[in-house]
C-alpha cells in the first residue's frame, strides 16, 4: 500500500509538471504580446509595454520564464526593482496587471467561494441522489420509482442557468424569501446566516442537476446489486430485507459512487462557471471567465494548473478510498 501510494504520488507530480509546462506555453504560442496585454486593450504606449515586459520577465526566453515561474511557486517572486518593487510570496503564480494583485491572492480570495459552493452542493446532491435512488430501487415499478424517474428527467433536462434563473425569479423576485445576490461573498465564520443566504440557491441549483444523475445511477446500481448471487446467499441465510439492503447491497452498490463523486467534485472546484455567473458569486469560475475575456494570462495559467492539481489529487484520493472499500483492490495494490 505504501509503495503503491508513493508510486502514485510520484506519477502525479510528474503529470503536474507536464501540465504546468504545457499550460505555460500559452505565453509563447498565443499570437499576443503578453507585455502588451498587461496595460489594457486600448493601451499602446511602447514605453509602458517595454517596462512591463522587463518587470514581468517576458523578455526572457520561454524556458527561462518557465524556470523562473517554477522558482516563484516555491520561493516567491519579486517583480521590478527600486520603488516599484512588488513581491508575491510563495506560492507565487505571477502578477496580474488586470487585477493589480498577485495571482495567488486573487485565487485565495475566490477559492473559499468555490469551495463553499462545491462542498455544499455535493452534500446536498449526495443526500438527495443516494436517498432517492435507494427508495426508487427498493420500490421498483411503484409510485416512488415513477416519481424518481420524473425527477431524473426534469433534473437532467434543465440546464443549470435556467434552474438558477427560475429560482431567482421565484424565491428572490416574486416571493422575496431571500435578498438579491449582492455580488459579495460573506465567509462562513464571519456571518454564518449571511453565508447561508448567499449560498443556498446556488447549492440547490447545482445539486438539482447532479442529484438527478446520481438518483439514476444509484437506482440502477442497487437494482443490479440486488440480483447478485451474494445477495441471494444473504437472503438464504435468513437475514431480514433491511440487513440485506443496508449491509450487503448498499456497500457494493455505492462503491463506484466514490469515483463519480470525487471526479464531479473536482470538476466543480475548477469553477462552476454558469452557476457563479447567474448568482454573481466571486468564485474561481468567475475569475477564470474574466481572465479569459480580458486575456489575463497569469490568471488563466494559474486557474488551469489549479484545476489540474485538484483533478489529479481527487483521483488519487478516490483510488485510496476505493482500497478501503473494496478488499480486492487492496490486495492488488
Amino acid at each position, binding site marked *: 500500500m505504501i509503495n503503491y501510494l508513493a508510486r502514485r504520488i510520484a506519477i502525479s507530480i510528474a503529470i503536474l509538471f507536464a501540465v504546468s509546462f504545457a499550460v505555460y506555453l500559452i505565453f509563447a504560442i498565443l499570437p499576443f504580446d503578453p507585455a502588451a496585454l498587461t496595460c489594457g486593450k486600448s493601451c499602446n504606449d511602447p514605453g509602458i509595454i517595454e517596462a512591463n515586459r522587463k518587470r514581468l520577465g517576458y523578455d526572457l526566453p520561454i524556458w527561462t520564464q518557465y524556470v523562473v515561474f517554477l522558482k516563484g511557486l516555491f520561493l516567491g517572486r519579486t517583480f521590478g526593482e527600486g520603488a516599484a518593487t512588488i513581491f508575491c510570496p510563495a506560492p507565487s503564480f505571477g502578477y496580474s496587471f488586470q487585477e493589480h494583485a498577485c495571482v495567488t491572492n486573487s485565487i485565495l480570495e475566490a477559492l473559499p467561494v468555490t469551495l463553499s459552493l462545491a462542498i455544499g452542493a455535493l452534500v446536498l446532491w449526495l443526500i438527495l441522489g443516494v436517498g432517492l435512488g435507494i427508495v426508487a430501487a427498493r420500490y421498483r415499478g411503484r409510485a416512488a420509482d415513477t416519481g424518481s424517474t420524473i425527477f431524473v428527467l426534469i433534473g437532467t433536462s434543465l440546464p443549470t442557468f435556467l434552474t438558477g434563473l427560475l429560482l431567482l425569479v421565484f424565491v428572490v423576485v416574486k416571493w422575496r424569501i431571500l435578498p438579491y445576490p449582492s455580488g459579495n461573498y460573506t465567509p462562513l465564520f464571519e456571518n454564518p446566516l449571511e453565508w447561508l443566504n448567499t449560498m443556498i440557491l446556488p447549492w440547490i441549483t447545482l445539486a438539482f442537476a447532479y442529484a438527478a444523475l446520481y438518483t439514476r445511477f444509484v437506482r440502477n446500481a442497487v437494482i443490479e446489486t440486488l440480483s447478485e*448471487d451474494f445477495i441471494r446467499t*444473504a437472503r*438464504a441465510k*435468513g*437475514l*431480514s430485507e433491511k*440487513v440485506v439492503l443496508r449491509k450487503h447491497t448498499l456497500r457494493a452498490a455505492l462503491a463506484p459512487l466514490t469515483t463519480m463523486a470525487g471526479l464531479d467534485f473536482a470538476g466543480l472546484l475548477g469553477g462552476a462557471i454558469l452557476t457563479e455567473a447567474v448568482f454573481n458569486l466571486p468564485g474561481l469560475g468567475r475569475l477564470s471567465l474574466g481572465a479569459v475575456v480580458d486575456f489575463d494570462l497569469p490568471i488563466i495559467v494559474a486557474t488551469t494548473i489549479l484545476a489540474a492539481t485538484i483533478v489529479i489529487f481527487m483521483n488519487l484520493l478516490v483510488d485510496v478510498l476505493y482500497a478501503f472499500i*473494496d*478488499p*480486492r483492490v487492496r490486495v492488488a495494490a
Partner: protein
Amino acid sequence: MSFLEVSDLRVEFPTSDGLVKAVDGVTFTVERGETLAIVGESGSGKTVTNLALMGLLSKRGSRISGSAIMKGDAGNLELIDLADEQMRKIRGKNIAMIFQDPMSSLHPYYTIGDQIIEAHQVHNEVDIEVSTARAIELLEMVGIPDAANRLKAFPHQFSGGMRQRVMIAMALVNSPELLIADEPTTALDVTVQAQILKLLRELQSELKMAIILITHDLGVVAGAADRVNVMYAGKIVESAPVGELYANPLMPYTHGLLASIPRMDRGHGKRLSAIAGQPPSLIALPAGCAFAPRCNFTERVGGGPDRCKSTMPALTEHTPGHFARCHLEGAAL
C-alpha cells in the same frame, strides 16, 4: 410420514407473453439422512422448485400453489404459505442452501469470518465469541486448514473449491435439517467436484440431514444420491433409487441423458450421443407428453405417436419404488 412431503407443487410466472408454468404439479418426499437428486436440463424447473421451498421467489412475480410440509424440529410446517417473517427464521436455520457459483455467491467486501459469523448470529442470541468459535469449528469440519487465521481472509483469496467449502461451512453453521445444494459442483474442476461431493456425503452421515441435490449432471448423481427425480418441462418424468435408474431407465428422456454421459469404456471414435431438438417453451406446453417431439420411441408405443402427442402419461410405478411418466411398457427401452 416423511421428513419433507412436497405434493402437487406448482409455480407459475405471469409474463407479457403468457403464463410460464415453471413447475407443474411436482410431488416427492425426502427422508432424514437421504439425498434426493433432482436432475434436468436448464429450464426444467429444478431450481425453481427449491427456491419455492426456501420462500425465495418474489411474491409479486410468481404464483405458487400446492403443499410442502416439513416435519422438523420446528414442528410441522407448511412451507408454501408461511408468513415472510416465519420463513425468514427457518431459512439458514432449518433449511440451508448452497449455490452453483462459489465465486459470486460470497460477498466480495466481507471476510469469510464475518459472513459465517453473521449466519450464526442471525439465528442465535449468543456472544460474538461463541459464533466465532462455531465458525472455526465449521471451517475445520469442511477441511480448511488453519481455520482460525483464515477467518480474516476475503473470498478472493480462496480458490473455487475452497470457496465452495466456505459456502458449505456457512450453510451448516446452524445444523440445518435440510440442505439444498443447487449445482454445487458445476463451476468447479472435476477433481474438486469429487472432493466436494465426498465432503457433503460425510457431513450428511455426521449431521443426519436431508439433502436435495440439484444438478444437470447424471455423473455427479451416481456417487452422491440415494434417489433421483428426473425433471422435464416442469414435471417429474422419472423417479427411482439411483442404482435402479442407471441400470434400468424407463423414460426415453432419462435414457437419452444417460447415453450423453461421456464414458471411457465406450470405445474409440464413437460420437457422444445427444438428444435432438430443444426443450419446449413453458408457455405453450403440448397437450400430451412434453418430450414426445424429441422422442425416438413414440412408434413403439401402443397407439403410436398420436397417443404421446395427445395424452399426458401419468407418473406410474412400474417396479416397486421406480416411477416413470411414459406410455411405453417398461422393458421396451
